[in-house]
C-alpha cells in the first residue's frame, strides 16, 4: 500500500504547488480536506482522496452519541461549586454568567472534535498513514488529530499560514514540526520557549507566486481602466485591520477597525489636492459588506474602490501601502512598494509585525500618516532608504525569496515520511 499523507484543513489555492509536486511524484496517496485544493486537483486531473470519504454516517452517528452523553454529564458537573470556583476573577465567580454560552459553544466544538477523531481512526485503520500536514495546529479541528497522532506515533507537520504576531493562543507549537517563513517567525516561537528542533525555515510556499509575477504597463492600464483608476495619479492601497478574537487587548479600543479606517480617510482627505486615489483591500476574514466601507468614505468626502480579492494585482498597481501589522505588508515589499505601518495610539505597542529597522515607516495618527504618504510618493530619499532596507527585511520574513519555498517544503514532507519508514 502506498504511503498516505493527510493534509488537514485549509491551505488555500496559493499552496496548490505543494500538492501538485507531491502528486506528480506518484509515490504518495494524498488525503485532502480543503475544498479549494480538491477542486484544483480535479481540474488538473491529479489523483487524491477526499477526507470527506472518511466522514461517513457511522462516524457522524458515533460522534453524535458521544456528545449527547457528555452533555448530560456536563450539565450536572458544571453546577458543582468547586468546579465553578476556577472561574473567579477579582472576587467575582463569573461561571453562572457564562455557563449557557460556555456550554453551548463547547458542545458545538466537541461535535467537530469527536468527528475528526473518529474519521482519523478510520484512516489509520484503512490506510498506510505516514504523515499529517496541518494548515494550523491551534484550533479545535486540528488539535484532536494531533493528540491522536502522537498516541499512534504518526508525525505531524504544520505549515504556517502567516508570519505570526503576538496573540495569546498562537505561542505554543503543538505539531512535531512547523515550517515557518523566515527567522522572524523562528525568533517569535523561540521567545515563547518552543524547542528549536521543532522549527524549520522554508520560506512561504504561497508567496512563490511573486517571483514569477509581472504586469506590463499596458496590462496595468487595462486593469485600471476597467476598475476606474487613473494610472497617472498615485494609488494608495489600504489594508483593513481585523480584531483578534482571542485577545482581551482588543478591549483597549473596541471597533478599532473602523477608527483606524476613519483616521486613514482623514489623512487621505488632506492630500485631496494632490489627486491621490484610495483602494481599500478588505481582510479575507472581514465579513463587513464592502458597501459599509464605501458609505463611511462617502461621509468623509473620499472616493474609494473597495476590493476583497486580487491582492497581487492591486499591490502591483499601487504606489504606497498602508497596513497594520499585516502580512500583506511583506507581500507589498516583494513588489518593491513602500509600506507605512499605521497604529492608533491605544494599541501602538501590541501585535507589531515589523521591527523599527525593517523597511517600513511607523506612524500613529492621521497627521503623521499624511506626511508619510507624501514622503513615500514624492521624497526620493525616503524611497531610497526603504528600498535599501527591503532586502534584509524580506530575508527576515521570507528567507531566501527565491521562489523555491514550495520545493523546500515538499523536501521536508518527504524527509518526514521517510523518517517514519
Amino acid at each position, binding site marked *: 500500500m502506498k504511503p498516505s499523507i493527510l493534509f488537514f484543513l485549509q491551505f488555500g489555492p496559493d499552496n496548490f504547488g505543494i500538492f501538485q509536486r507531491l502528486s506528480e511524484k506518484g509515490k504518495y496517496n494524498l488525503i485532502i480536506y480543503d475544498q479549494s485544493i480538491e477542486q484544483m486537483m480535479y481540474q488538473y486531473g491529479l489523483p487524491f482522496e477526499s477526507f470527506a470519504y472518511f466522514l461517513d454516517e457511522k462516524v457522524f452517528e458515533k460522534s453524535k452519541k*458521544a456528545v449527547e452523553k*457528555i452533555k448530560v*454529564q*456536563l450539565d450536572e*458537573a*458544571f453546577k458543582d461549586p*468547586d*468546579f465553578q470556583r*476556577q472561574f473567579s*476573577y*477579582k472576587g*467575582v465567580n*463569573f461561571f453562572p*454568567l*457564562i455557563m449557557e*454560552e*460556555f456550554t453551548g*459553544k*463547547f458542545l458545538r*466544538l*466537541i461535535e467537530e*472534535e469527536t468527528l475528526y*477523531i*473518529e474519521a482519523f*481512526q478510520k484512516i489509520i485503520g484503512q490506510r498506510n498513514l505516514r504523515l499529517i500536514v496541518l494548515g494550523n495546529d*491551534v*484550533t*479545535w479541528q*486540528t*488539535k*484532536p488529530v494531533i*493528540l*491522536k497522532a502522537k*498516541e499512534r506515533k504518526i508525525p505531524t507537520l504544520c505549515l504556517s499560514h502567516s508570519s505570526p504576531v503576538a496573540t*495569546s*493562543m498562537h505561542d505554543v507549537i503543538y505539531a512535531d514540526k512547523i515550517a515557518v517563513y523566515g527567522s522572524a517567525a523562528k525568533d517569535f516561537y523561540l521567545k515563547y520557549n518552543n524547542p528549536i528542533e521543532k522549527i524549520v525555515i522554508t520560506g512561504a510556499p504561497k508567496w512563490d507566486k511573486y517571483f514569477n509575477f509581472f504586469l506590463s504597463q499596458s496590462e496595468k492600464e487595462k486593469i485600471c481602466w476597467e476598475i476606474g483608476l487613473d494610472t497617472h495619479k498615485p494609488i494608495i492601497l489600504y489594508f483593513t485591520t481585523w*480584531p483578534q*478574537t*482571542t*485577545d*482581551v*487587548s*482588543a*478591549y*483597549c*479600543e*473596541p*471597533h478599532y477597525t*473602523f477608527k483606524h479606517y476613519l483616521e486613514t480617510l482623514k489623512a487621505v482627505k488632506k492630500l485631496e489636492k494632490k489627486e491621490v486615489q484610495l483602494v481599500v483591500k478588505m481582510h479575507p476574514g*472581514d*465579513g*463587513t*459588506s464592502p458597501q*459599509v466601507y464605501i*458609505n*463611511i468614505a462617502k461621509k468623509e468626502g473620499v472616493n474609494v474602490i473597495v476590493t476583497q480579492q486580487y491582492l497581487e494585482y492591486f499591490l502591483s498597481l499601487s504606489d504606497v501601502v498602508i497596513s497594520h501589522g499585516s502580512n500583506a505588508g511583506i507581500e507589498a515589499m516583494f513588489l518593491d512598494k513602500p509600506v507605512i505601518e499605521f497604529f492608533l495610539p*491605544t*494599541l501602538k*505597542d*501590541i501585535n507589531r509585525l515589523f521591527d523599527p529597522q525593517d523597511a517600513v515607516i511607523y506612524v500613529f495618527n492621521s497627521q503623521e500618516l499624511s506626511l508619510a504618504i507624501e514622503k513615500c510618493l514624492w521624497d526620493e530619499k525616503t524611497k531610497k532608504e526603504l528600498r535599501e532596507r527591503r532586502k534584509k527585511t524580506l530575508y527576515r520574513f521570507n528567507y531566501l525569496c527565491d521562489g523555491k519555498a514550495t520545493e523546500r517544503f515538499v523536501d521536508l514532507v518527504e524527509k518526514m515520511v521517510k523518517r517514519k519508514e
Partner: protein
Amino acid sequence: MSKKTITNKKFISSVISILYDTTFHLVIKCSNKKCKNIFGLNVPGFVMGKTTCPHCGENYTFTSYEISEVYDKLGAKLTYSQAKKANKKAVEIIKSWYNHKKVKKILTYEGVNLGIPAEYGLMPVLTKVLADIEAGKIK
C-alpha cells in the same frame, strides 16, 4: 402597525458585548411612542443588523459602524495593562479548567481530553466577561 425602516443609533440603549465572538449583543428601546418595548438583537460579524420590534412591528436597521459608535459610550474599555491582566487570567483558566476532577473523566474521549483542543474556540467566551470584570462593569 408601522412598517418604516429606521436607521438610527439612538435607539440602541445598550451594547452588551462586541467583537470577541464577532457578535454584537444589542438591547433596543422601541422608538414608537405608544410601544416603548425593550427587546434584544444579536448582530453577527460586521454585517448590518436588521430587526423588527416584536410588539409593534417597527423596523430597525443598524450598521455595525453605528453600533460601534454607541459602544464607545457604553462598552467596557480597558487600558493596556488592565487588558494584559485580564488576558493572563483568561489563558490560565482556558488551559486548566478541563483537568478539574469533576470533568476530566467526562471529557476524555478515545484518550483525548476534549477540553484541550477547545482552548482556542472558547477564548472569546472568557475574554468578554473578564474584560467586563476588569473594567468594573461586573462586580
